């Protein structure tokens, strides 16, 4: 690991100013991803700006009836929060399906969104990787890619975004609030992460030096139910092979509103708008759910060893929607 300086700013403004002065700086949240990558030599910041103590650790109600989640709220606290459990169970469940008790206690909302891919080549500095070192190639495409993307990948990169939380936030239409050297702005979480295209080095649309300050959830749609389903190689403490976050409103046997997002399939949480179009207004039956999943997954381009993810995602989707429909009674 390279040596680095360490600063603990007292305010958002100070954190942003410190970062603007140092192109080699990184913000430090819980450190569960960044410190790991520094040990591996993938990240080598000259300055760590510790934002974990900033006063962004609250979950509060918005005037519109939604929820404002500070960027330093720990994953375990967010999962346990009363309002999240009651109104956004999909978010609670996604958080609790991720990592371990220890890691969730340290991990922050901001850091979770910006965690990097678990692609084994990205994490190994002795290997080429377009995301880590642009222009060196993508060995995963022909190599070990069982865990990697089936949707939205490019010739240059087939990595997946590993976060469970972000998948739930995508289905919930959350907005990410940013504070940077050029001021403040808000980005829908579905547009925060990029597809790799020919520039896989950039995971997100974040501009240099921008700090995530909060994530805002709109009010949960009236009468909706939501859940998160995740398939993984072991029962706990493993990243998603495929996952689905679903928010569904069923009335008189018909789908009124549906929002769906997939995890583990793409370079970003994959909002399944084609599936939603099939669902909206259709009878809430297994046949509809399968048709919806197929409409979305028709775009899948599996690699040699990860075609199983398409079947998995289809089954997770149908299972989740059936369960939500059963609950709606």
């Amino acid at each position, binding site marked *: 690991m390279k*040596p680095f300086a360490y600063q603990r700013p007292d305010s958002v403004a100070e954190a942003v100013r410190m970062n603007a002065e140092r192109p*080699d700086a990184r913000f*430090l949240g819980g*450190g569960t991803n960044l410190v790991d990558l520094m*040990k591996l030599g993938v990240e080598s910041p000259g300055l760590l700006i*510790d934002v974990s103590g900033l006063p962004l650790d609250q979950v509060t109600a918005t005037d519109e009836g939604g929820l404002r989640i500070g960027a330093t709220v720990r994953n375990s606290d967010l999962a346990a929060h009363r309002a999240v*459990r*009651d109104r956004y169970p999909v978010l609670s469940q996604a958080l609790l399906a991720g990592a371990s008790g220890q890691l969730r206690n*340290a991990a922050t909302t901001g850091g979770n969104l910006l965690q990097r891919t678990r692609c084994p080549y990205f994490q190994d500095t002795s290997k080429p990787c377009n995301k880590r070192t642009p222009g060196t190639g993508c060995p995963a495409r022909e190599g070990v890619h069982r865990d990697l993307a089936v949707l939205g990948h490019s010739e240059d990169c087939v990595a997946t975004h590993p976060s469970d939380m972000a998948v739930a936030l995508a289905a919930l239409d959350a907005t990410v609030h940013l504070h940077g050297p050029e001021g403040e702005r808000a980005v829908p979480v579905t547009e925060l992460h990029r597809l790799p295209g020919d520039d896989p080095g950039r995971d997100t649309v974040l501009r240099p030096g921008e700090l995530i300050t909060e994530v805002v959830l709109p009010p949960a749609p009236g009468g909706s139910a939501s859940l998160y389903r995740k398939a993984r190689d072991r029962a*706990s403490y493993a990243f998603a092979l495929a996952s689905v976050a679903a928010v569904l409103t069923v009335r008189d046997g018909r789908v009124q509103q549906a929002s769906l997002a997939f995890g583990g399939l793409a370079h970003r949480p994959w909002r399944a708008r084609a599936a939603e179009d099939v669902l909206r207004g259709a009878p809430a039956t297994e046949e509809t759910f399968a048709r919806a999943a197929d409409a979305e997954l028709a775009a899948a381009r599996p690699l040699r060893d990860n075609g199983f993810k398409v079947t998995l995602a289809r089954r997770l989707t149908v299972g989740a929607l059936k369960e939500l429909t059963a609950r709606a009674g």
Partner: protein
Amino acid sequence: MDTTPAKDERDAGRLTPADDRSTFTLHINGTAQTLTLDHRTTVLDALREHLGLTGAKKGCDHGQCGACTVLVDGRRANSCLLLAVAQQGSRITTVEGLAEGDRLHPLQEAFLERDALQCGYCTPGQICSAVGMIAESADGFPSHATPQEALADDGPVALGPDEIRERMSGNLCRCGAYPRIVEAIEDVAP
């Protein structure tokens, strides 16, 4: 981990010698410890290499095994991923700090009673994790194994074997002592 700043880093003017280390106080097992440490030092390395507290173990050094689990302000965390410099002001408890004098912590007793270990390498992490886990459940924190109905409830979560296994999944045991570990924790869990 190499904690000697590379000479070329210094020469490149990127860092001055004063920038890459700090003097600060850590509160470990109720004792304030003032140390001057390279910023790269993790809590795990500070404990083991600088404070002679070798209870917390280094298994993977990447957050994947739980052998390094300690309590930070009563909450469990992987000390291999915590930078020591970022823990000024927090109270850290290691397995060495759980007993009261000669009286072992009930979980330590239960692990002995149930013979919940083979090589013992994972045990300090298992025990610290279990202490934190029982407190989380008492505080009503749900888990992936908590039934949907119970999510509506704010009270303590009952700790049956399924809850214990799920909540302890961040602690691996290469020897596979899991059945006894679950029993030992069940003995102590309310």
